[in-house]
């Protein structure tokens, strides 16, 4: 049981209006009432009584790196974020523990009405806008940990793109957990108004702790008519983070949501990004990849709800299991009655690199519309001795060969990443697999 006093304290600390406190308290009630999910793997050690549910980094949000205390600035400099912001980003927001500490957007975009603010500030500065969307896209009642998120949320970013504004460069939010046995519950809300376009990148990191930490974040995206939102995550938490993430987008008429969800780090990761295709002609593509390298559990997938006619969805999932890793794909395609001529194609492939690893796929289709077209295909393959022999005969070591197999397996998805991200990811994977697999 989590006491309401903690929730009230978080709310008071941020001078929140009554309506936000009400959302928190209702969510807390749901959390205490909803059953613990029994199907999940890898959350056995999770005891919320052991963890700090709110950790104030002691830094007020600023919009210039120079205003940050030196020790905090160094964290981000080590991650090369200030440099990266200068070269590649239209805006950047960074969260440390339970609060957003830095937020900045390019001046010309500010002048066009783009808002990039810490979520807590947006609640106070733009209450009508936030209230219209907050918790309306991903409902607190979805499951026990989404309810927990809404009760305890703190930090995160609010991004609003006015009608017709197209951002040429991406906006990034970066989340960092600095201590063990800590809970991070950041909430991000992205609104692309009619005809707006944005690429939002989410990154995360934490040092390796002796004990675990817990991440239970949320991302809500609303794409209005004709808007385009590309959302890219490459989750690279350290290997003792238990990671839940509650992510959903709603696409109105002719809007397009492009989603790249990558999962490399974390001890256990449970993320099913979902899209509701609410308006006629709305579409989405979801590219999901996860790597369970070591005794870790990656439980991911994609969920699409076709509600309107002529909606289209494509899901491509790639899971790699090595060294005792467990990869699980849980997907859902729901095509409602009336979603005439809806089209959905799901492809999910798993690669097993040794006999200690596991791959499971649980795709779920609920089709209630006779004119819809739906296809799903899944295969599980292994890295065969023939392939290994061939690559070794070309001069590669076993580890290099396996690294190459991994990169080849997710090549299609890498193509969808920004160039600089794809090259960093390649380096991370090469380094990871060169240590030896199996």
């Amino acid at each position, binding site marked *: 049981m989590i006491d309401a006093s903690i929730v009230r304290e978080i709310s008071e600390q941020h001078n929140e209006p009554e309506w936000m406190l009400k959302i928190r308290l209702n969510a807390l009630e749901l959390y205490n009432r909803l059953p613990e999910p*029994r199907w999940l793997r890898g959350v056995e050690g999770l005891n919320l009584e052991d963890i700090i549910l709110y950790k104030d980094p002691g830094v007020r949000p600023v919009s210039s790196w120079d205003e940050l205390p030196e020790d905090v600035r160094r964290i981000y400099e080590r991650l090369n974020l200030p440099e990266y912001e200068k070269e590649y980003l239209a805006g950047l927001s960074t969260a440390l523990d339970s609060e957003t500490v830095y937020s900045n957007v390019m001046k010309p975009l500010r002048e066009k009405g783009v808002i990039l603010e810490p979520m807590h500030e947006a609640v106070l500065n733009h209450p009508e806008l936030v209230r219209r969307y907050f918790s309306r896209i991903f409902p607190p009642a979805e499951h026990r940990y989404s309810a927990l998120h809404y009760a305890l949320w703190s930090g995160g970013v609010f991004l609003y793109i006015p009608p017709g504004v197209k951002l040429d460069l991406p906006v990034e939010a970066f989340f960092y957990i600095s201590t063990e046995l800590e809970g991070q519950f950041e909430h991000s809300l992205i609104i692309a108004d009619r005809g707006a376009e944005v690429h939002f990148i989410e990154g995360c990191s934490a040092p390796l702790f002796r004990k675990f930490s817990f991440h239970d974040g949320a991302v809500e995206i609303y794409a209005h008519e004709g808007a385009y939102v590309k959302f890219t995550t490459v989750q690279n938490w350290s290997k003792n983070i238990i990671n839940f993430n509650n992510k959903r987008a709603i696409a109105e008429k002719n809007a397009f949501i492009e989603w790249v969800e990558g999962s490399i780090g974390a001890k256990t990761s449970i993320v099913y990004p979902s899209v509701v295709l609410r308006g006629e002609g709305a579409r989405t593509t979801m590219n999901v990849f996860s790597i369970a390298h070591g005794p870790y559990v990656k439980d991911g*997938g994609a969920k699409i709800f076709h509600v309107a006619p002529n909606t289209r969805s494509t899901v491509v999932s790639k899971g790699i299991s090595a060294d005792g890793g467990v990869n699980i794909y849980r997907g*859902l395609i729901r095509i409602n009655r009336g979603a005439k001529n809806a089209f959905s194609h799901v492809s999910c492939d798993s690669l097993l*690199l*040794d006999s200690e690893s596991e791959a*499971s796929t*649980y795709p779920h*289709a609920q*089709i209630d519309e006779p004119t819809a077209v*739906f296809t799903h295909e899944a295969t599980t393959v292994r890295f065969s001795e023939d392939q290994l022999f061939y690559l070794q005969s070309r001069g590669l070591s076993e580890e290099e060969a396996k690294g190459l197999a991994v990169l080849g397996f997710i090549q299609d998805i890498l193509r969808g990443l920004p160039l600089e991200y794809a090259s960093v990811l390649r380096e991370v994977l090469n380094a990871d697999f060169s240590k030896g697999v199996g």
Partner: protein
Amino acid sequence: MLRLDDIRKRAADVLPTTTYQPYGDSPTIRSYTRWELFEDAFSGDAWDRGKVIGAVPVDAIPSFSFDPSRSRALAHHFSKLPAIYTWDGSKELLLESGEGHTAQHILFCVRNDAKIYIRDVSRNSKSATLDILVRPGVSADISLLVSGSAPQYLHIRVHLGRESRFTSRLAVIGQDAHVHYEVFLNGERASTDISGGSIGGRSDVVTDVFAGSKSNRAFVRHLIFSSPGDFLAHRGVIRVERASSGAEVDMDSAFLTTGGLAVSVPQLEILTDDVVHAAHRSRDLSPDDEQVFYAQTRGLSSDAFLELYVKELLRSRVASLADAPEVQNAVKSFSESIQR
């Protein structure tokens, strides 16, 4: 061996702590059976043995045949089981419901290659378990027709020895039918081929296959025909255990809907990298305009083509069961709904 009194007592002991589906709370492996209807049916006291034509009553079962903790439906079933039968495969087996809730438990030990036809008709609620042991080197071929107008729980558990084979054809036409296959490929080179179709009404077919030895092969295909008001689901897992090697497994779950709900959840759990082939797919098989046009250019009206298409699609899954009068009537109704 377990005698009937022991079975009832042991099942009653586990009943309070057993759920209908161990993982029923998962958002993607949720239950599609209205278990509350079964709970009502099981709670009555007047249980009937119904009619089991072609089998012989016995008073005990081997212990491997008794596992009530797998599902609350099984625990209920065993807790008041009125009789046990064995069957040697020499005659057609007909299962019929009696007055009140009917519970039937049939044991098969297949020692020689056998072709088995089972027709299961239920007017009242019913639970039946078919426990099949296929001896090494033997093949069992079972055609199963399930129809009825009341909640019906059918559990088919098959253990396969070395180089044995289990083939099943299933046709389900019913209201609130829950058919659950559990096939254990225990022996080397044991294989199974399960193929079926659900036509109309409300049914939930679960096909679970566990490959646990060398060079096992499993092929599962199921087809759903759902018209307005129907609610049909096919789910199932093929699990390749860590001890298995060289397995070849494939599941194909397809549907054709004219406005009813069709649910398809084909699942794979692969616990070893030593697999030759592991794949599944799920798709809708609605005929497209080009197919209809092609048939018309060959002199078939679109109505005649659609009827033929549905019939042959079903026949590809259920073979001769497509000729049963119940199945033909159901196909006719479905074809009419597609033509509309």
